[in-house]
């Protein structure tokens, strides 16, 4: 019985192969978009982790000395039992360009800090190869770097895929010889000393000790980007499910009579449902496997752009491609099965509750009555109400996502109702029988197309929303770079004394020297930072303020008031007019500045006031303002004169340029996802149109018989699709903007503590309109072409049973 019933059920797919293809394609694409985004995110996060745990990141502190830590000091500290390891950094000029050379001691470096070599066991915790430490030594480089440096007059190169590009690791002895130095650069303190060990200050009095630099700021910024990608993946998946929902709904509807017959012949309701569930499970697993493979392909194609971002922002190399964890495959399959379950739930429920003796005539598929539309409208309002309540009554990220989800579902549900009303209004403007029929027929098609149009609405709204957010993000990021990288050069000296000498050296060649001083501080019970800011136009011309009282910069410069960052303001509710306790001074808050990417509270005070309050604070960092044309020469001069490692004098203009280009490249990922989501919705329209095309003949044949040519009818079909796409696009604009606002003003604030300003980009909308019109026209063109070429005999079959 079961086998016979299953055979009967599956026979439907044999007779409707296109429906099967639609179902499989929809589910595979939905799964692909979701799992592809997940793969990109996972790979990116893995790279962040790798960047964050690079050499030195795990150290407790860093020891530095003017002119580098002497070799003897390192030996003395090791002999005293201190777990220290040297890092000597410098630049080697080669014919192919400068190479950043990092000298390390493989014996004292913690296990796993050196990337694994491609060919032998050096690094990654394994004992170093003899060739690495004995002259001429070896250079650990990324494969791409090895290719660039081929033929250079350097020690033999060994490829290590985990290496950052443009960088080589060598044994410290080899590095000293290549760089012509006898010091060991700086020392990383890897842990606490053994009991009884002498303090560092006693062994080596001249050393400065500092915490290793945190690298989390830009990582926080990219968190927002990844949140975007995840939201995009989820929405794309939802859009794909509309196709699945349509295909399953149709397949169930067309088999209603078969279900009834099977039940009448003795198949129990439970067994019928079990068979249908098993059938869906098999289909979803097959489509899910295909989807995960497609997702991997998509991620492979997009990962170079993400890798470029990571390389630029972190120096992390992800060019090695994707690593596919079994959990990723399994989660992809699980989401496919889950999605199918969601898409099929209503159909399964209808089958479960179908009375055995009811008339066996199948109801018109997806035909919505006025009552159903009213119900749908009410459901949309209910979703909107839930979203509103979540926003008004609750705080937190979950409430933000409920607001976002509620809005999107409400908009999708409301679309058919809205279109029904608009088309009714347009029908009243009809002149002549053709336009009268066109509007009436368009309204009649609406229920059959509404799922696809809802998918299109979601795709367009997502495009507008995420596009607005990303573009706003870019503008904000540009501004953030401008404020943070205001000076042309940034210098970090080994000590205050060296800093003073550098300042004297550069003073005649610069327009301004802007000291950068800061201390760690407890701000409202949270670990934060107090920063001294120079009273200089560089800041008050550029620094964007979220909120400001009167005369902000004069008061801050005079030491009468302070600025706080947005995170602090939002966390503590301290805005202009409030005060903040700074070591007993109840400092009036004059303004709040945006501080994207910084997870910690921060307060800025005038430099003089800072010097008076914190005289012991280090004064070894400063920015230099000078003519951009002189930046490269001055940088070289400082490095040469004071023998500083390359990373101590940073040309921020080129960093800014690189960061922006990396960011733009990052946006190509978003653009690709935009296009893919739109393509999925286009596919949803195509499948819907093709599905209803077979049902259209009884509707179109009488009009043809009454004197409209097939070609004209086909043109009207395309026009109808374009019109519906246009109306959907118009509806998508407010939804997309609302989505962007939620992402910028609610989700970001809840997730990161700062709010991105929203900008509008109407030109992007026009491009999107053109794309959606193209997608709709292409989708409509196939069934329309088929209609135009339908032989009259086929149309006549509508009217009679015999020839």
């Amino acid at each position: 019985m079961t086998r016979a019933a299953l055979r009967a059920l599956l026979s439907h797919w044999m007779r409707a192969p296109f429906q099967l293809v639609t179902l499989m394609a929809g589910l595979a694409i939905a799964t692909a978009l979701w799992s592809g985004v997940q793969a990109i995110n996972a790979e990116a996060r893995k790279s962040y982790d790798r960047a964050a745990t690079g050499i030195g990141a795990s150290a407790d502190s860093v020891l530095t000395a003017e002119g580098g830590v002497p070799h003897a000091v390192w030996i003395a500290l090791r002999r005293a039992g201190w777990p220290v390891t040297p890092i000597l950094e410098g630049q080697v000029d080669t014919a192919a360009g400068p190479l950043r050379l990092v000298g390390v001691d493989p014996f004292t470096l913690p296990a796993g800090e050196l990337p694994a070599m491609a060919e032998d066991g050096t690094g990654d915790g394994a004992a170093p190869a003899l060739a690495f430490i004995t002259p001429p030594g070896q250079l650990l480089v990324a494969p791409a770097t090895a290719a660039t440096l081929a033929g250079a007059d350097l020690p033999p190169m060994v490829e290590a895929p985990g290496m950052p590009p443009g960088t080589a690791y060598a044994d410290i002895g080899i590095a000293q010889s290549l760089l012509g130095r006898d010091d060991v650069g700086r020392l990383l303190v890897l842990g606490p000393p053994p009991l009884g060990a002498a303090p560092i200050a006693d062994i080596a009095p001249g050393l400065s000790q500092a915490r290793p630099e945190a690298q989390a700021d830009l990582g926080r910024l990219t968190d927002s980007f990844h949140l975007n990608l995840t939201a995009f993946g989820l929405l794309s998946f939802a859009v794909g499910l509309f196709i699945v929902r349509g295909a399953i709904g149709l397949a169930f509807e067309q088999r209603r009579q078969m279900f009834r017959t099977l039940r009448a012949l003795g198949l129990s309701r439970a067994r019928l449902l079990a068979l249908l569930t098993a059938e869906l499970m098999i289909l979803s697993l097959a489509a899910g496997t295909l989807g995960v493979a497609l997702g991997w392909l998509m991620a492979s194609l997009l990962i170079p752009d993400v890798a470029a971002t990571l390389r630029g922002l972190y120096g992390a190399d992800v060019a090695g491609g994707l690593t596919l964890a079994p959990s990723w495959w399994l989660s992809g399959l699980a989401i496919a099965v889950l999605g199918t379950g969601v898409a099929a739930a209503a159909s399964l429920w209808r089958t479960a509750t179908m009375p055995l003796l009811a008339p066996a005539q199948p109801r018109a598929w997806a035909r919505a009555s006025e009552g159903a539309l009213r119900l749908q409208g009410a459901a949309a309002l209910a979703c909107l109400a839930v979203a509103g309540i979540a926003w008004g009554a609750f705080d937190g990220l979950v409430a933000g996502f409920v607001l976002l989800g509620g809005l999107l579902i409400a908009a999708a549900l409301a679309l058919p109702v809205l279109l029904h009303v608009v088309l009714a209004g347009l029908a009243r403007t009809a002149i002549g029988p053709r336009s009268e029929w066109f509007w009436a027929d368009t309204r009649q098609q609406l229920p059959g197309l509404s799922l696809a149009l809802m998918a299109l609405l979601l795709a367009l709204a997502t495009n507008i929303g995420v596009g607005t957010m990303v573009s706003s993000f870019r503008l904000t990021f540009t501004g953030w770079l401008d404020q943070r990288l205001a000076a042309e050069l940034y210098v970090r000296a080994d000590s205050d004394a060296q800093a003073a000498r550098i300042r004297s050296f550069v003073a005649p060649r610069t327009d301004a020297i802007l000291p950068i001083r800061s201390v760690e501080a407890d701000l409202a019970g949270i670990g934060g930072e107090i920063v001294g800011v120079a009273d200089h136009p560089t800041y008050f011309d550029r620094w964007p303020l979220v909120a400001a009282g009167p005369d902000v910069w004069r008061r801050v410069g005079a030491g009468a008031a302070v600025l706080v960052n947005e995170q602090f303001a939002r966390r503590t509710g301290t805005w202009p007019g409030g005060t903040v306790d700074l070591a007993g001074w109840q400092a009036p808050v004059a303004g709040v500045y945006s501080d994207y990417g910084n997870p910690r509270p921060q307060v800025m005070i005038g430099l003089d006031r800072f010097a008076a309050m914190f005289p012991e604070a280090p004064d070894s960092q400063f920015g230099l303002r000078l003519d951009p044309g002189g930046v490269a020469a001055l940088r070289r001069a400082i490095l040469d004169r004071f023998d500083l490692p390359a990373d101590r004098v940073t040309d921020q203009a080129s960093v800014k340029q690189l960061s922006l280009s990396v960011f733009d490249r990052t946006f190509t990922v978003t653009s690709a996802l935009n296009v893919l989501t739109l393509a999925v919705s286009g596919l949803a329209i195509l499948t819907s149109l093709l599905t209803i095309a077979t049902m259209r003949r009884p509707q179109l044949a009488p009009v043809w018989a009454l004197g409209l040519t097939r070609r004209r009818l086909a043109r009207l079909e395309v026009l109808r699709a374009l019109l519906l796409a246009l109306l959907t696009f118009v509806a998508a604009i407010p939804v997309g903007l609302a989505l962007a606002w939620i992402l910028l003003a609610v989700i970001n604030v809840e997730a990161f503590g700062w709010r991105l300003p929203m900008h509008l980009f109407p030109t992007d909308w026009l491009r999107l309109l053109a794309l959606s019109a193209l997608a709709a026209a292409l989708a409509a063109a196939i069934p329309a072409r088929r209609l135009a070429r339908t032989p009259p005999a086929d149309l006549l079959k509508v009217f009679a049973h015999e020839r």
Partner: protein
Amino acid sequence: MSSALLSVTNLSKSYDGAGGPVPVLRGIDFDLAAGRTLALTGESGSGKSTLLHVVGGLDTPDAGSVLIDGTDIAALDDSGRARLRRETVAVVFQQFNLIPSLDVARNIAFQARLAGRHDPDWAARLATRLGLDDHLAKYPEQLSGGQQQRVAIGRTLAARPRLVLADEPTGNLDEETGVAVLDLMLDLVAETGAALMCVTHSPALAARMERRLHLKGGRIA
């Protein structure tokens, strides 16, 4: 022959079959004068409906000529045949006659408006004669089969075509309803002065026509 509204000469038509072309019409010759009625009878597959479709400009002949008011429709292109269907010929089918998205009133007026001959008074009189006054705001799916056929007849006659073609117009109706619909159609066709060619299996219906042609194997028997 020259006074005939419809003149069919040596008409042939075949369809593609699995084993090659399958002839359906083989050298048909007949004519029909304006205001006259003609029944086409024959067994299933004899070519009745194909002949009606070709005469109605819904399909094209392989050979021969079909002159309607002196115009050879075999020489018309798709647009020409569409114009013919709008302005000169009207067809009442056995089923699926109506435009489902338009209400009854609009369905009745539709072809007349396409032809540019819409006369609201005439359409209203037809609706009354056809007993559709209470159903004008309804949609086809809300009507019975008999009511739907009456709407189809109303739509056909509202356009005042020169030639009315009917393909089993009562085939889906019970006997009583079928007779009533046929009576109405004959009365109204006579009133408009149109010619009527009716395809039917029913000897009773055929007996109501002035002339009868019997098709067998694609030929007039």
